[in-house]
């Protein structure tokens, strides 16, 4: 792997940047691998990287049906935080946040993590109580989190309309200062490049069309580029988890819904933090290019169309203008949708399945970008040892039979 640094940048300037080597190879698929990972989003690529790096399993392929990061990884609003309510989630997302904090160095790739803080607004007494409950739970779990009063919100982010007469007044907020945003593509590309350097084959334009099994265990995958043999097949396909699992006759508690986002025309730096509000349902940050990045709520039904309904955009803009009246004259530039994999308890499924050698990592829904490094890390452990890491053990598929759900609807009421 060609190391990126100020010196390599300077050196390549001399040749007009014409001879950078490609960030990862594009090999032909081999006949056999130790592990096949299905899905070249952030989660699949991170999993491949940690399998090679931490478990010495290098004979790995990542199969991606289109291009790397073209799923939800490249479509999300990139909010990163770990202030989840329940112990299980707080530990998992905090594990991810810690990995984020060293990721650019680890991968020798700038993932542009910007810990600009994530503010969650409270608009009524119930919100206030929920927020202080969450902040206390976070602190007991070692997650940085604090409660701000209305005056402190006003001082921290003067753009927010904190006047008392409005329909949803700001009564306070929680703030996780270590939260923020990161560059979505860079996460996929950084993991891909680092995994490739450790010998992982990244194979784009290769869709898995079947999962071959015998005697209750996987034998390999049928793909658009032929059969690939592997004793371990690990799904990391977000929206497509249900129908890939169905290829192995598994039923999952996941539904795939559209989730939209919009960006405004670029403006000078005005918003230096991430602002979220559950009650008016809005979340927004400003990108380095100057665009406001605004996320919506999910559309109310199953769809893989990768486009959502217009009323959702109207709703989200109403909410944004309520919180930030000065944004009312901004024009919106682009709109798009991803398809998110929603679990009944708004928590992911990461673990083994009843089929030997088949692993599942999905159901991250509206909030799995922030978990990318942590998810890959514990999933690699699960695949290498054929047993879950303590951090993802509570997120098993069995929890839907045992009843031990991890209800994070509070954390995910706003899609993020």
């Amino acid at each position: 792997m060609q190391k990126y640094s100020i010196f390599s940048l300077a050196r390549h300037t001399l040749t007009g940047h014409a001879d950078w080597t490609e960030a990862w190879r594009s090999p032909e698929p081999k006949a056999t691998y130790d592990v096949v990972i299905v899905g070249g989003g952030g989660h699949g690529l991170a999993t491949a990287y940690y399998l090679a790096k931490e478990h010495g399993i290098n004979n790995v392929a990542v199969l991606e049906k289109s291009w790397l990061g073209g799923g939800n990884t490249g479509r999300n609003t990139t909010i990163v935080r770990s202030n989840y309510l329940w112990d299980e989630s707080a530990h998992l997302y905090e594990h991810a946040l810690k990995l984020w904090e060293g990721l650019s160095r680890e991968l020798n790739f700038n993932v542009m993590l910007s810990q600009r803080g994530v503010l969650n607004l409270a608009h009524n007494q119930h919100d206030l109580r929920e927020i202080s409950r969450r902040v206390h739970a976070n602190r007991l779990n070692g997650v940085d989190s604090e409660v701000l009063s209305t005056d402190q919100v006003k001082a921290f982010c003067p753009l927010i309309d904190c006047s008392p007469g409005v329909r949803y007044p700001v009564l306070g907020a929680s703030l996780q200062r270590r939260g923020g945003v990161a560059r979505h593509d860079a996460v996929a590309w950084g993991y891909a490049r680092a995994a490739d350097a450790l010998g992982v084959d990244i194979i784009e334009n290769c869709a898995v069309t079947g999962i071959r099994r015998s005697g209750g265990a996987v034998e390999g995958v049928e793909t658009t580029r032929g059969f690939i043999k592997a004793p371990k097949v690990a799904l990391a396909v977000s929206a497509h988890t249900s129908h890939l699992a169905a290829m192995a006759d598994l039923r999952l508690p996941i539904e795939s819904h559209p989730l939209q986002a919009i960006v405004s025309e670029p403006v000078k730096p005005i918003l230096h933090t991430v602002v979220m509000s559950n009650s008016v349902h809005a979340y927004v940050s400003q990108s380095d290019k100057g665009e406001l990045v605004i996320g919506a709520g999910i559309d109310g039904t199953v769809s893989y169309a990768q486009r959502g309904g217009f009323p959702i955009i109207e709703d989200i803009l109403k909410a944004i203008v309520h919180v930030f009246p000065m944004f009312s004259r901004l024009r919106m530039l682009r709109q798009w949708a991803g398809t998110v994999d929603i679990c009944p308890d708004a928590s992911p499924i990461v673990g083994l399945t009843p089929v030997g050698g088949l692993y599942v990592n999905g159901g991250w829904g509206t909030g799995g970008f922030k978990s990318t490094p942590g998810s890959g890390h514990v999933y690699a452990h699960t695949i290498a040892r054929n047993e879950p890491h303590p951090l993802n053990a509570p997120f098993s598929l069995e929890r839907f039979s045992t009843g031990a759900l991890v209800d994070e609807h509070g954390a995910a009421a706003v899609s993020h």
Partner: protein
Amino acid sequence: MYLIPCPWCGERDQSEFRSGGEAHIARPLEPEHLNDGAWADYLFMRTNPMGLYRERWVHAHGCRRWFNMLRDTVSDRILAVYHMDEAPPEPGDES
């Protein structure tokens, strides 16, 4: 955004309707005889298909009545609407 043909009111804007999730999931008649896996299957597991999908809808801001729909989840094309006590039409039945 699409128009939904309510069986009672005719074509109306999607925003008047709410989806009620997958159709034809019958509540088990004797839940006390189910094991945890079978109960979980009824409560939580869904087909979530990429393609033909039979789902329940309610005309929430209209006649407030329920009905079923056959829709392609990839194109969002509505192939048929039918009453809740009717057998699901097969694709191709619609006209």
